[in-house]
Protein backbone atom coordinates (compact mmCIF):
# COMPACT_ATOMS: atom_id res chain seq x y z
CA UNK A 1 0.00 0.00 0.00
CA UNK A 2 1.45 3.34 -0.90
CA UNK A 3 1.13 6.36 1.36
CA UNK A 4 0.69 9.50 -0.84
CA UNK A 5 1.13 12.00 1.98
CA UNK A 6 4.24 14.03 1.25
CA UNK A 7 7.01 12.88 -1.01
CA UNK A 8 8.00 9.85 0.93
CA UNK A 9 7.03 6.59 -0.62
CA UNK A 10 6.51 4.25 2.26
CA UNK A 11 6.47 0.78 0.86
CA UNK A 12 7.04 -2.39 2.75
CA UNK A 13 10.63 -3.39 2.12
CA UNK A 14 11.05 -6.42 -0.10
CA UNK A 15 11.41 -9.56 2.05
CA UNK A 16 14.04 -10.96 -0.21
CA UNK A 17 16.62 -8.36 1.24
CA UNK A 18 16.47 -9.52 4.95
CA UNK A 19 18.79 -12.53 4.77
CA UNK A 20 21.47 -10.33 3.13
CA UNK A 21 21.41 -7.82 6.02
CA UNK A 22 21.74 -10.58 8.58
CA UNK A 23 24.76 -11.94 6.75
CA UNK A 24 26.31 -8.48 6.77
CA UNK A 25 25.88 -8.24 10.59
CA UNK A 26 27.36 -11.66 11.08
CA UNK A 27 30.42 -10.75 9.01
CA UNK A 28 30.92 -7.66 11.16
CA UNK A 29 30.79 -9.80 14.32
CA UNK A 30 33.51 -12.11 13.03
CA UNK A 31 35.99 -9.21 12.87
CA UNK A 32 38.79 -9.54 15.43
CA UNK A 33 40.59 -6.89 17.39
CA UNK A 34 43.38 -6.98 14.85
CA UNK A 35 40.90 -6.01 12.16
CA UNK A 36 39.94 -2.89 14.09
CA UNK A 37 43.55 -2.13 14.86
CA UNK A 38 44.47 -2.43 11.23
CA UNK A 39 42.82 0.96 10.73
CA UNK A 40 45.63 2.55 12.75
CA UNK A 41 49.13 3.06 11.46
CA UNK A 42 51.76 0.91 13.18
CA UNK A 43 49.18 -1.18 15.04
CA UNK A 44 50.22 -4.68 16.17
CA UNK A 45 49.10 -7.61 14.11
CA UNK A 46 47.65 -10.87 15.41
CA UNK A 47 50.97 -12.77 15.71
CA UNK A 48 52.39 -9.96 17.85
CA UNK A 49 49.29 -9.93 20.07
CA UNK A 50 49.59 -13.69 20.51
CA UNK A 51 53.26 -13.25 21.41
CA UNK A 52 52.33 -10.70 24.08
CA UNK A 53 49.73 -13.09 25.47
CA UNK A 54 52.36 -15.82 25.69
CA UNK A 55 54.87 -13.51 27.36
CA UNK A 56 52.63 -11.62 29.79
CA UNK A 57 49.71 -14.00 30.22
CA UNK A 58 47.14 -11.50 29.05
CA UNK A 59 46.86 -8.62 26.62
CA UNK A 60 43.91 -6.28 27.01
CA UNK A 61 42.61 -3.47 24.89
CA UNK A 62 40.94 -0.36 26.20
CA UNK A 63 39.28 2.34 24.14
CA UNK A 64 38.71 5.67 25.80
CA UNK A 65 37.17 6.85 22.55
CA UNK A 66 36.93 5.58 18.96
CA UNK A 67 40.42 6.82 18.17
CA UNK A 68 42.13 6.49 21.55
CA UNK A 69 43.03 2.81 21.82
CA UNK A 70 45.52 1.26 24.19
CA UNK A 71 46.78 -2.28 24.49
CA UNK A 72 48.13 -3.09 27.91
CA UNK A 73 49.06 -6.00 30.13
CA UNK A 74 48.65 -6.62 33.88
CA UNK A 75 51.51 -5.54 36.13
CA UNK A 76 53.45 -8.41 37.73
CA UNK A 77 54.15 -8.70 41.43
CA UNK A 78 57.86 -8.22 40.97
CA UNK A 79 57.37 -5.00 39.04
CA UNK A 80 54.89 -3.75 41.62
CA UNK A 81 57.23 -4.49 44.53
CA UNK A 82 60.17 -2.82 42.72
CA UNK A 83 58.01 0.21 42.10
CA UNK A 84 57.09 0.48 45.77
CA UNK A 85 60.73 0.05 46.76
CA UNK A 86 61.68 2.81 44.33
CA UNK A 87 59.04 5.12 45.82
CA UNK A 88 60.25 4.49 49.35
CA UNK A 89 63.87 5.00 48.30
CA UNK A 90 62.98 8.36 46.79
CA UNK A 91 61.08 9.35 49.91
CA UNK A 92 64.03 8.43 52.11
CA UNK A 93 66.26 10.63 49.95
CA UNK A 94 63.82 13.44 50.54
CA UNK A 95 62.41 13.51 47.03
CA UNK A 96 58.65 13.64 46.91
CA UNK A 97 56.98 11.01 44.70
CA UNK A 98 53.37 11.87 44.00
CA UNK A 99 50.53 9.54 43.12
CA UNK A 100 50.64 10.92 39.59
CA UNK A 101 54.29 9.88 39.23
CA UNK A 102 53.35 6.36 40.31
CA UNK A 103 50.48 6.28 37.81
CA UNK A 104 52.81 7.37 35.04
CA UNK A 105 55.32 4.68 35.94
CA UNK A 106 52.66 1.96 35.93
CA UNK A 107 51.19 3.07 32.61
CA UNK A 108 54.61 3.34 30.99
CA UNK A 109 55.46 -0.16 32.22
CA UNK A 110 52.27 -1.88 31.17
CA UNK A 111 50.96 -0.19 28.04
CA UNK A 112 52.23 -2.16 25.04
CA UNK A 113 50.78 -0.03 22.27
CA UNK A 114 48.73 3.14 21.94
CA UNK A 115 47.05 4.63 18.90
CA UNK A 116 48.43 7.98 17.72
CA UNK A 117 45.46 9.82 19.18
CA UNK A 118 45.90 7.83 22.37
CA UNK A 119 49.53 8.91 22.68
CA UNK A 120 48.49 12.49 22.19
CA UNK A 121 45.78 12.17 24.85
CA UNK A 122 48.32 11.15 27.44
CA UNK A 123 49.73 14.64 27.44
CA UNK A 124 46.57 16.56 26.50
CA UNK A 125 43.92 14.98 28.72
CA UNK A 126 44.52 15.00 32.47
CA UNK A 127 42.59 11.87 33.33
CA UNK A 128 44.15 9.52 30.78
CA UNK A 129 46.95 8.28 33.00
CA UNK A 130 44.64 7.89 36.00
CA UNK A 131 42.05 5.96 33.99
CA UNK A 132 44.60 3.66 32.41
CA UNK A 133 46.27 3.14 35.79
CA UNK A 134 42.92 2.11 37.27
CA UNK A 135 42.25 -0.30 34.41
CA UNK A 136 45.69 -1.85 34.72
CA UNK A 137 45.23 -2.43 38.45
CA UNK A 138 41.82 -3.98 37.87
CA UNK A 139 43.30 -6.29 35.27
CA UNK A 140 46.05 -7.16 37.78
CA UNK A 141 43.44 -8.45 40.27
CA UNK A 142 43.50 -5.57 42.71
CA UNK A 143 40.08 -5.67 44.37
CA UNK A 144 38.00 -3.92 46.96
CA UNK A 145 38.58 -5.34 50.47
CA UNK A 146 34.86 -5.77 51.11
CA UNK A 147 34.44 -7.74 47.89
CA UNK A 148 37.50 -9.84 48.60
CA UNK A 149 36.12 -11.15 51.90
CA UNK A 150 33.20 -12.63 49.94
CA UNK A 151 35.64 -14.68 47.90
CA UNK A 152 36.96 -16.54 50.93
CA UNK A 153 35.79 -20.10 51.52
CA UNK A 154 36.42 -22.22 54.58
CA UNK A 155 37.45 -25.69 53.47
Amino acid at each position, binding site marked *: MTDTLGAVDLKAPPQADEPQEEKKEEKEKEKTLADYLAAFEGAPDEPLIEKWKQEFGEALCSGLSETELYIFRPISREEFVNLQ*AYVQQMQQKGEEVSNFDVEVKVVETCVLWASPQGVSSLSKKAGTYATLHEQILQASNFMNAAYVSQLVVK*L
Partner: protein
Amino acid sequence: MDEHLLYLRKEHGDVFATRLPTGQTIPWRPLTTGEYLKYTAMFRNDQYPRAFIEDEVFTLCVLDGALVRSIGKLKAGIVSTVVSSIMVFSGPQSLEDLNTGLHIARQQMHDAMHDLVSMICMAFPAYKPEEVYTMDYRNLMLRAAQAEKKLIQTGFIDEPIFFEPREATIEQKRQIDEQQQKRREANQDMLNKYYEQEGIHVPDSLKRARKEASRELITDHPAPPPVPEHTGETTVISKSDIMEHESFMSGHEQDIVNKVQVTKDTAQFYTGYLDELKEGGTLRIKTPEERKAAAEARMEANRQKLIERRKKALEDAKAELPQLLKVREDARRRKAKKAARKR
Protein backbone atom coordinates in the same frame (compact mmCIF):
# COMPACT_ATOMS: atom_id res chain seq x y z
CA MET B 1 31.29 -27.80 47.70
CA ASP B 2 32.95 -28.60 44.40
CA GLU B 3 35.52 -31.25 43.77
CA HIS B 4 38.43 -28.87 43.57
CA LEU B 5 37.73 -27.54 47.07
CA LEU B 6 37.32 -31.08 48.36
CA TYR B 7 40.68 -31.90 46.83
CA LEU B 8 42.26 -28.85 48.50
CA ARG B 9 40.79 -29.85 51.85
CA LYS B 10 42.18 -33.35 51.43
CA GLU B 11 45.59 -31.89 50.52
CA HIS B 12 45.86 -29.15 53.12
CA GLY B 13 43.30 -29.87 55.81
CA ASP B 14 40.99 -27.47 57.60
CA VAL B 15 42.15 -24.19 56.01
CA PHE B 16 40.77 -21.22 54.05
CA ALA B 17 40.84 -20.55 50.33
CA THR B 18 40.32 -17.47 48.16
CA ARG B 19 38.43 -18.09 44.92
CA LEU B 20 39.44 -15.43 42.43
CA PRO B 21 37.03 -14.33 39.66
CA THR B 22 39.41 -15.93 37.16
CA GLY B 23 38.63 -19.33 38.69
CA GLN B 24 41.94 -19.72 40.48
CA THR B 25 41.67 -20.97 44.09
CA ILE B 26 44.46 -20.19 46.53
CA PRO B 27 44.55 -22.13 49.82
CA TRP B 28 45.98 -20.39 52.90
CA ARG B 29 46.09 -20.61 56.67
CA PRO B 30 45.39 -17.68 58.98
CA LEU B 31 48.25 -16.06 60.93
CA THR B 32 48.74 -17.00 64.57
CA THR B 33 47.91 -14.27 67.10
CA GLY B 34 51.59 -13.43 67.58
CA GLU B 35 52.20 -13.22 63.84
CA TYR B 36 49.07 -11.11 63.36
CA LEU B 37 50.18 -8.58 65.98
CA LYS B 38 53.67 -8.47 64.48
CA TYR B 39 52.51 -7.84 60.92
CA THR B 40 49.82 -5.37 61.97
CA ALA B 41 52.54 -3.35 63.68
CA MET B 42 54.78 -3.63 60.60
CA PHE B 43 51.98 -2.36 58.33
CA ARG B 44 51.38 0.52 60.72
CA ASN B 45 55.05 1.46 61.12
CA ASP B 46 55.72 2.01 57.41
CA GLN B 47 59.28 0.88 57.93
CA TYR B 48 59.12 -1.32 54.84
CA PRO B 49 57.09 -0.89 51.65
CA ARG B 50 53.69 -2.45 52.07
CA ALA B 51 54.30 -4.83 49.16
CA PHE B 52 57.35 -6.32 50.92
CA ILE B 53 55.35 -7.16 54.00
CA GLU B 54 52.51 -8.54 51.88
CA ASP B 55 54.96 -10.83 50.10
CA GLU B 56 56.23 -12.07 53.45
CA VAL B 57 52.72 -12.82 54.70
CA PHE B 58 51.83 -14.50 51.40
CA THR B 59 54.92 -16.71 51.60
CA LEU B 60 54.16 -17.59 55.21
CA CYS B 61 50.48 -18.41 54.86
CA VAL B 62 49.78 -19.71 51.35
CA LEU B 63 49.95 -23.46 51.26
CA ASP B 64 50.48 -23.95 47.51
CA GLY B 65 54.24 -24.20 47.16
CA ALA B 66 54.19 -23.62 43.41
CA LEU B 67 52.39 -20.30 43.81
CA VAL B 68 54.79 -19.18 46.53
CA ARG B 69 57.82 -20.04 44.41
CA SER B 70 56.48 -18.11 41.42
CA ILE B 71 55.28 -15.12 43.45
CA GLY B 72 57.21 -12.66 41.28
CA LYS B 73 55.38 -13.76 38.14
CA LEU B 74 51.87 -13.60 39.60
CA LYS B 75 49.62 -10.64 38.91
CA ALA B 76 50.40 -7.95 41.45
CA GLY B 77 46.89 -7.81 42.87
CA ILE B 78 46.60 -11.51 43.65
CA VAL B 79 49.10 -11.26 46.48
CA SER B 80 47.55 -8.07 47.88
CA THR B 81 44.05 -9.55 47.61
CA VAL B 82 44.94 -12.80 49.35
CA VAL B 83 46.94 -11.02 52.07
CA SER B 84 44.06 -8.64 52.79
CA SER B 85 41.82 -11.72 53.29
CA ILE B 86 44.44 -13.29 55.53
CA MET B 87 44.64 -10.18 57.70
CA VAL B 88 40.83 -9.94 57.96
CA PHE B 89 40.49 -13.56 59.07
CA SER B 90 43.52 -13.56 61.37
CA GLY B 91 42.46 -10.84 63.77
CA PRO B 92 40.02 -8.04 64.57
CA GLN B 93 40.01 -4.91 62.42
CA SER B 94 38.39 -2.78 65.13
CA LEU B 95 37.18 -2.97 68.72
CA GLU B 96 33.74 -3.79 67.36
CA ASP B 97 35.17 -6.81 65.57
CA LEU B 98 36.82 -7.89 68.81
CA ASN B 99 33.54 -7.62 70.73
CA THR B 100 31.69 -9.47 67.98
CA GLY B 101 34.30 -12.23 67.92
CA LEU B 102 34.10 -12.60 71.68
CA HIS B 103 30.32 -12.75 71.53
CA ILE B 104 30.48 -15.49 68.90
CA ALA B 105 32.98 -17.42 71.01
CA ARG B 106 30.67 -17.10 74.01
CA GLN B 107 27.91 -18.77 71.96
CA GLN B 108 30.32 -21.56 71.09
CA MET B 109 31.18 -21.89 74.77
CA HIS B 110 27.58 -22.95 75.47
CA ASP B 111 28.64 -26.43 74.44
CA ALA B 112 29.04 -28.39 77.70
CA MET B 113 32.20 -30.04 76.38
CA HIS B 114 34.04 -26.70 76.49
CA ASP B 115 32.99 -26.33 80.13
CA LEU B 116 34.48 -29.74 80.87
CA VAL B 117 37.79 -28.72 79.27
CA SER B 118 37.86 -25.54 81.39
CA MET B 119 37.08 -27.54 84.53
CA ILE B 120 39.91 -30.01 83.85
CA CYS B 121 42.41 -27.18 83.31
CA MET B 122 41.21 -25.46 86.49
CA ALA B 123 41.66 -28.59 88.57
CA PHE B 124 44.96 -29.60 86.95
CA PRO B 125 46.84 -26.40 86.05
CA ALA B 126 49.58 -28.40 84.33
CA TYR B 127 47.12 -29.27 81.57
CA LYS B 128 46.78 -26.77 78.75
CA PRO B 129 43.45 -26.58 76.90
CA GLU B 130 45.18 -27.64 73.66
CA GLU B 131 46.33 -30.88 75.35
CA VAL B 132 42.84 -31.60 76.66
CA TYR B 133 41.30 -31.04 73.23
CA THR B 134 43.61 -33.73 71.82
CA MET B 135 42.28 -36.34 74.29
CA ASP B 136 39.83 -38.96 73.14
CA TYR B 137 36.34 -39.01 74.70
CA ARG B 138 37.05 -41.81 77.19
CA ASN B 139 40.15 -40.14 78.62
CA LEU B 140 38.38 -36.79 78.67
CA MET B 141 35.55 -38.20 80.80
CA LEU B 142 38.03 -39.85 83.15
CA ARG B 143 39.92 -36.59 83.64
CA ALA B 144 36.66 -34.71 84.07
CA ALA B 145 35.62 -37.08 86.87
CA GLN B 146 39.03 -36.69 88.54
CA ALA B 147 38.81 -32.92 88.20
CA GLU B 148 35.32 -32.90 89.69
CA LYS B 149 36.52 -34.94 92.67
CA LYS B 150 39.46 -32.63 93.28
CA LEU B 151 37.32 -29.50 93.04
CA ILE B 152 34.82 -30.95 95.52
CA GLN B 153 37.62 -31.88 97.93
CA THR B 154 39.14 -28.40 97.76
CA GLY B 155 35.72 -26.87 98.23
CA PHE B 156 35.60 -25.08 94.91
CA ILE B 157 32.35 -26.83 94.03
CA ASP B 158 29.83 -28.27 96.45
CA GLU B 159 28.28 -31.09 94.53
CA PRO B 160 28.88 -33.22 91.44
CA ILE B 161 28.24 -31.57 88.11
CA PHE B 162 25.01 -32.19 86.26
CA PHE B 163 24.43 -30.58 82.89
CA GLU B 164 20.95 -29.35 82.10
CA PRO B 165 19.56 -28.07 78.82
CA ARG B 166 19.59 -24.35 78.54
CA GLU B 167 15.92 -23.44 78.49
CA ALA B 168 16.12 -20.15 80.31
CA THR B 169 14.82 -17.17 78.42
CA ILE B 170 17.00 -14.16 77.84
CA GLU B 171 15.44 -12.39 80.83
CA GLN B 172 16.03 -15.36 83.12
CA LYS B 173 19.60 -15.62 81.92
CA ARG B 174 20.12 -11.96 82.65
CA GLN B 175 18.71 -12.42 86.15
CA ILE B 176 20.90 -15.47 86.76
CA ASP B 177 23.96 -13.53 85.55
CA GLU B 178 23.10 -10.63 87.86
CA GLN B 179 22.69 -12.92 90.85
CA GLN B 180 25.95 -14.69 90.13
CA GLN B 181 27.72 -11.36 89.75
CA LYS B 182 26.37 -10.18 93.12
CA ARG B 183 27.51 -13.41 94.80
CA ARG B 184 30.97 -13.13 93.29
CA GLU B 185 31.28 -9.52 94.42
CA ALA B 186 30.12 -10.38 97.94
CA ASN B 187 32.64 -13.23 98.16
CA GLN B 188 35.47 -11.12 96.85
CA ASP B 189 34.62 -8.27 99.20
CA MET B 190 34.67 -10.59 102.22
CA LEU B 191 37.91 -12.18 101.09
CA ASN B 192 39.64 -8.83 100.51
CA LYS B 193 38.62 -7.61 103.97
CA TYR B 194 39.94 -10.80 105.55
CA TYR B 195 43.26 -10.45 103.73
CA GLU B 196 43.48 -6.82 104.82
CA GLN B 197 42.68 -7.70 108.41
CA GLU B 198 45.25 -10.48 108.51
CA GLY B 199 47.84 -8.47 106.66
CA ILE B 200 48.01 -10.99 103.82
CA HIS B 201 49.39 -9.63 100.55
CA VAL B 202 47.84 -11.32 97.49
CA PRO B 203 50.14 -11.20 94.42
CA ASP B 204 48.77 -9.45 91.33
CA SER B 205 49.13 -12.63 89.26
CA LEU B 206 46.74 -14.41 91.62
CA LYS B 207 44.26 -11.54 91.49
CA ARG B 208 44.30 -11.75 87.69
CA ALA B 209 43.91 -15.56 87.82
CA ARG B 210 40.98 -15.12 90.20
CA LYS B 211 39.33 -12.67 87.78
CA GLU B 212 39.78 -15.07 84.88
CA ALA B 213 38.41 -17.99 86.87
CA SER B 214 35.43 -16.01 88.12
CA ARG B 215 33.07 -17.58 85.62
CA GLU B 216 31.08 -20.16 87.54
CA LEU B 217 30.41 -23.57 86.04
CA ILE B 218 27.22 -24.33 87.94
CA THR B 219 24.17 -22.13 87.70
CA ASP B 220 22.54 -23.33 90.94
CA HIS B 221 25.37 -22.36 93.30
CA PRO B 222 24.12 -21.92 96.93
CA ALA B 223 24.01 -18.32 98.11
CA PRO B 224 26.78 -17.38 100.56
CA PRO B 225 26.04 -15.68 103.88
CA PRO B 226 25.51 -11.92 103.47
CA VAL B 227 28.41 -9.53 104.06
CA PRO B 228 28.02 -8.01 107.58
CA GLU B 229 27.29 -4.30 107.62
CA HIS B 230 29.73 -1.80 109.11
CA THR B 231 28.79 -1.24 112.79
CA GLY B 232 31.77 0.93 113.70
CA GLU B 233 34.99 2.29 112.32
CA THR B 234 36.42 -1.13 111.68
CA THR B 235 34.76 -4.39 110.77
CA VAL B 236 36.23 -7.38 112.51
CA ILE B 237 35.90 -10.54 110.53
CA SER B 238 36.11 -13.58 112.71
CA LYS B 239 37.58 -16.93 111.81
CA SER B 240 34.11 -18.45 111.74
CA ASP B 241 33.01 -15.87 109.17
CA ILE B 242 35.88 -16.70 106.89
CA MET B 243 35.39 -20.44 107.35
CA GLU B 244 31.83 -20.02 106.06
CA HIS B 245 33.28 -18.46 102.93
CA GLU B 246 36.12 -20.93 102.57
CA SER B 247 34.06 -23.11 100.27
CA PHE B 248 34.02 -20.27 97.75
CA MET B 249 37.76 -19.89 97.76
CA SER B 250 39.82 -21.28 94.93
CA GLY B 251 42.51 -23.85 95.67
CA HIS B 252 45.20 -21.14 95.39
CA GLU B 253 43.48 -18.90 97.91
CA GLN B 254 43.14 -21.76 100.36
CA ASP B 255 46.84 -22.41 99.91
CA ILE B 256 47.55 -18.82 100.94
CA VAL B 257 45.33 -19.11 104.02
CA ASN B 258 47.03 -22.38 105.00
CA LYS B 259 50.48 -20.90 104.55
CA VAL B 260 49.64 -17.99 106.80
CA GLN B 261 48.38 -20.39 109.46
CA VAL B 262 51.50 -22.54 109.22
CA THR B 263 53.67 -19.42 109.50
CA LYS B 264 51.87 -18.40 112.67
CA ASP B 265 52.15 -21.87 114.19
CA THR B 266 55.86 -22.20 113.49
CA ALA B 267 56.78 -18.60 114.35
CA GLN B 268 58.39 -19.71 117.60
CA PHE B 269 61.07 -21.60 115.65
CA TYR B 270 61.99 -18.58 113.52
CA THR B 271 61.81 -15.80 116.09
CA GLY B 272 65.23 -14.45 115.21
CA TYR B 273 64.44 -14.28 111.48
CA LEU B 274 61.03 -12.76 112.06
CA ASP B 275 62.54 -10.11 114.33
CA GLU B 276 65.08 -9.23 111.65
CA LEU B 277 62.28 -8.90 109.09
CA LYS B 278 60.23 -6.69 111.40
CA GLU B 279 63.19 -4.36 111.95
CA GLY B 280 63.34 -3.97 108.21
CA GLY B 281 66.88 -5.17 107.82
CA THR B 282 68.10 -7.76 105.37
CA LEU B 283 67.75 -11.31 106.45
CA ARG B 284 71.11 -12.78 107.39
CA ILE B 285 71.22 -16.55 107.16
CA LYS B 286 73.50 -17.95 109.88
CA THR B 287 76.45 -20.16 108.94
CA PRO B 288 76.55 -23.77 110.18
CA GLU B 289 79.25 -22.83 112.71
CA GLU B 290 77.13 -20.01 114.12
CA ARG B 291 74.13 -22.29 114.30
CA LYS B 292 76.20 -24.96 116.05
CA ALA B 293 77.48 -22.40 118.53
CA ALA B 294 73.91 -21.16 119.10
CA ALA B 295 72.68 -24.73 119.54
CA GLU B 296 75.44 -25.44 122.09
CA ALA B 297 74.58 -22.24 123.91
CA ARG B 298 70.92 -23.26 123.97
CA MET B 299 71.91 -26.72 125.17
CA GLU B 300 73.97 -25.25 127.98
CA ALA B 301 71.15 -22.87 128.87
CA ASN B 302 68.66 -25.75 128.91
CA ARG B 303 71.02 -27.80 131.06
CA GLN B 304 71.34 -24.98 133.53
CA LYS B 305 67.57 -24.57 133.58
CA LEU B 306 67.15 -28.28 134.24
CA ILE B 307 69.67 -28.14 137.10
CA GLU B 308 67.87 -25.16 138.58
CA ARG B 309 64.55 -26.89 138.28
CA ARG B 310 65.85 -30.01 140.00
CA LYS B 311 67.42 -27.95 142.75
CA LYS B 312 64.16 -26.19 143.32
CA ALA B 313 62.32 -29.50 143.35
CA LEU B 314 64.80 -30.85 145.89
CA GLU B 315 64.42 -27.80 148.10
CA ASP B 316 60.65 -28.02 147.86
CA ALA B 317 60.85 -31.69 148.74
CA LYS B 318 63.11 -30.90 151.70
CA ALA B 319 60.71 -28.23 152.83
CA GLU B 320 57.83 -30.68 152.65
CA LEU B 321 59.72 -33.51 154.40
CA PRO B 322 58.88 -32.63 158.03
CA GLN B 323 55.25 -32.32 157.05
CA LEU B 324 55.34 -35.68 155.32
CA LEU B 325 57.07 -37.29 158.28
CA LYS B 326 54.43 -35.82 160.59
CA VAL B 327 51.68 -37.17 158.41
CA ARG B 328 53.31 -40.61 158.39
CA GLU B 329 53.76 -40.54 162.18
CA ASP B 330 50.09 -39.61 162.62
CA ALA B 331 49.02 -42.42 160.33
CA ARG B 332 51.20 -44.89 162.26
CA ARG B 333 49.72 -43.80 165.58
CA ARG B 334 46.17 -44.09 164.29
CA LYS B 335 46.92 -47.58 163.05
CA ALA B 336 48.45 -48.61 166.38
CA LYS B 337 45.44 -47.26 168.30
CA LYS B 338 43.07 -49.14 166.04
CA ALA B 339 45.01 -52.37 166.52
CA ALA B 340 45.02 -51.89 170.28
CA ARG B 341 41.22 -51.31 170.32
CA LYS B 342 40.66 -54.52 168.43
CA ARG B 343 42.63 -56.45 171.05
